[in-house]
C-alpha cells in the first residue's frame, strides 16, 4: 500500500472510532428507560396514540397515566417535559403518579409530553445526558432531554415554520417544539400530531383544566409564574396570591398574549372549553451566562456568574448563594398544581377535583425530591411502567 493510502486508512479508522465514541452514548441515551412505579391512585395507563393512531409505533407516542377517583368529578390533564430540558415538571408529574390518590374526579398525567425531546440532547451546549436524584434506596437516573423533538422523528425543518391554523411565522425549529404546535392537526408534522392528540384527549373526555409544567431562565421575566389566558386568570390570580401568602414562595400571573400563537396557554383555551395554566419555575441551568452545564448546576442551580448578575439586579428572581435547588422547583410545581385544583373546585363544586398524597413545597424542600420515589426493584412488575 502506498503511504498516502496508509494515511487515508488510518484517518478513516480514526473517524469511525470517533463517531462510535460520540454516537454510542447518544444511542444508549435515546433508548434508556426510566422506570415509574404507578402508585395506588393509578387506575389505567394508556397511550396518547389512542387519540391519534398515526402516533402508534413512533418515538412520539407516550404514556398517559389515568388516576380516576371513586367519586365522579372534574377532569384535569397535567403535562410535563413539553420541553425536556426543564425536568422539574417531569419530576413533579412522576411524584404525583407514584403517590397521588384521587378521591373525586380524574387526573390524566403525561410526564413525557414531548417523548422525542426526552430522548434528544444538545451536544453543542455540553448538556449532560443523565442526572441522578438521590433516594432512600439508591439513585434514580433520568434522561436529560432537549427543548425540541429529535430530527430523527421529524425531518426536515422548514425555513420558516408557518403555524397552523393562524399562519403566524415562527422560528424554523419551533416545528419540533410542542409548545408552539398547539392546537395541532392530524395530518401535520409529527409534533403537531402530538398536540392534536392531546387536544382530542381534552375534547373527548371534556377535560376541565390543563396544566403544563415548565422551567424558565432566571434572566427571563416570565418565570416564577402562572401564564393564563383571560378565562383562567381569576383562578390563576387566586392561586398565585395564596401560594405566595401561605406557602412562602414567589409567584405572579402573566397574561397569555393573544398574538403569540402555538403555545398551550393560548391555543388550549381557544380551541376547547378547557382552562389552561402554564407553570414556570426558575431553572438557572438554562441561563446563558453560566459556567459549564453540569448535572450539579442542573440540580442545585448554584452559579457564580448568576450570583454576580443577581447582585447587579439583572435577574428576575431573588437569587443568592443557595442557588435554586431542584427541591424548590418541584415543590413550586406541586403546590401550584394542588392550589389550582383547590381554587377551581371551590368555584365549581360539581366538577371539583380532590387529590391527596401529593407533597407540597415545604415537604419537598424538607425531604428532597427522591424521598417520594419508590424502588422499582421492590414493586410489583405490573405496577412498573417505563418512560
Amino acid at each position, binding site marked *: 500500500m502506498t503511504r498516502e493510502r496508509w494515511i487515508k486508512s488510518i484517518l478513516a479508522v480514526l473517524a469511525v472510532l470517533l463517531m462510535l465514541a460520540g454516537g454510542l452514548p447518544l444511542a444508549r441515551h435515546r433508548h434508556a428507560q426510566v422506570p415509574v412505579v404507578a402508585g395506588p391512585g393509578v387506575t389505567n395507563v394508556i397511550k396518547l396514540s389512542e387519540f391519534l393512531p398515526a402516533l402508534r409505533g413512533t418515538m412520539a407516542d407516550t404514556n398517559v397515566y389515568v388516576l380516576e377517583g371513586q367519586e365522579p368529578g372534574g377532569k384535569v390533564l397535567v403535562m410535563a417535559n413539553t420541553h425536556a430540558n426543564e425536568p422539574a415538571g417531569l419530576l413533579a408529574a412522576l411524584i404525583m403518579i407514584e403517590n397521588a390518590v384521587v378521591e373525586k374526579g380524574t387526573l390524566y398525567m403525561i410526564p413525557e409530553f414531548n417523548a422525542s425531546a426526552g430522548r434528544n440532547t444538545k451536544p453543542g451546549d455540553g448538556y449532560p445526558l443523565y442526572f441522578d436524584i438521590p433516594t432512600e434506596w439508591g439513585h434514580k437516573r433520568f434522561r436529560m432531554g432537549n427543548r425540541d423533538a429529535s430530527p430523527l422523528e421529524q425531518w426536515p425543518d422548514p425555513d420558516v415554520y408557518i403555524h397552523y391554523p393562524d399562519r403566524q411565522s415562527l422560528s424554523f425549529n419551533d416545528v419540533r417544539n410542542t409548545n408552539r404546535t398547539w392546537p395541532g392537526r392530524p395530518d401535520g408534522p409529527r409534533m403537531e400530531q402530538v398536540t392534536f392528540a392531546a387536544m382530542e384527549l381534552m375534547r373527548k373526555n371534556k377535560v376541565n383544566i390543563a396544566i403544563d409544567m415548565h422551567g424558565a431562565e432566571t434572566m427571563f421575566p416570565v418565570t416564577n409564574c402562572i401564564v393564563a389566558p383571560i378565562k383562567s*386568570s*381569576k383562578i390563576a390570580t387566586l392561586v398565585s*396570591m395564596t401560594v405566595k401568602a401561605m406557602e412562602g414562595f414567589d409567584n405572579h400571573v402573566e*397574561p397569555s*398574549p393573544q398574538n403569540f400563537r402555538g403555545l398551550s396557554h393560548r391555543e388550549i383555551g381557544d380551541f376547547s372549553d378547557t382552562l389552561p395554566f402554564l407553570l414556570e419555575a426558575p431553572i438557572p441551568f438554562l441561563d446563558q451566562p453560566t459556567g459549564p452545564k453540569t448535572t450539579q448546576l442542573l440540580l442545585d442551580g448554584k452559579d457564580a456568574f448568576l450570583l454576580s448578575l443577581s447582585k447587579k439586579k439583572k435577574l*428576575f428572581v431573588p437569587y443568592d448563594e443557595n442557588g435554586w435547588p431542584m427541591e424548590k422547583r418541584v415543590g413550586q410545581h406541586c403546590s401550584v398544581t394542588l392550589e389550582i385544583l383547590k381554587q377551581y373546585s371551590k368555584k365549581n363544586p360539581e366538577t371539583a377535583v380532590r387529590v391527596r398524597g401529593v407533597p407540597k413545597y415545604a415537604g419537598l424542600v424538607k425531604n428532597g425530591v427522591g424521598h417520594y420515589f419508590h424502588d422499582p426493584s421492590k414493586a410489583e412488575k405490573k405496577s412498573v411502567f417505563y418512560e
Partner: protein
Amino acid sequence: MSPLTKGVAAMKKTLFALATAALVIVFAPPAGSQGQIPKAQLPVLTISAGQSNDANTVNAVLEEAGILYDYCDVPTVEMLNAGVGLAGKKSAEGFHVESYTDTAKYPKGTPYKTVIIAIGASLKGMGASGLTVDAEEARVRKIIDACKKKKIFLIAVHPGGEAGRGPSGSDNERMIDAVAPFADFLIVTKDSNKDGRFTKVAALTKAPLIQVDYALGMVDILKKVFI
C-alpha cells in the same frame, strides 16, 4: 361645700380630664396616619392603571371578600359616568368588561360611589389594549379628574411588590405618579413600599395608608371598608 371638698372635687375633675386626654392620645391617631381604615360606599368600579394583572388581583380579592363590583380595564369617562352596567358595553379584543354589581340594590345607571384603581404597568397588557405608556397615563388622569369632579371615593391599590416598582420615570413609577397623590385611601403591600414611596405620598396628602404583608391580606381590609 368645704374648701377640702371643693379641692377634692377639682382634683377629680382634673384627673378625669387628664385620663380622657391620655385615652384620646393613645387610641385616636391623627388624621391621615397609617392604620386607619376608612369607610366607602357601593356601588364600586375597579379599573387598571397600567394594565398589569394587578387589576385581576383586586377583583379576586373583592370576590373573596364577598363584595360585588363592576370592572373595566380601559374605561372611558363616558363609561364611568354611565354608572352601574358600564352603559351595557361588552368585552371585545383588548377591552374587558365585567358587571357583577347587585342591580336589585343598585339598578343599572346608578352612579359609582367608589373606584378602586390597581396600579401596575405591563407593556404586554397595554399593547394588548392598543395603548402606549403615554396614552395609558393620559387615560388614567382623565378618569381620575372625572372621579374628583363627581366626588367619587378613590382607593389606590399597589399589590405588585418590588416587581411593580422601578427607577424614577419608569412605567410603573409613572402610573404611581398619576394615581397615588389623588387617592383617598392607599392599600399597598409592604414590599411595594420598601423605599417609603407611598408613606411619603400619604404624609403629603393625608390619605390613610394601609400596608399588608401579602395581597391576600387585602381581603380583610376591603371587608372593613365596604361592610
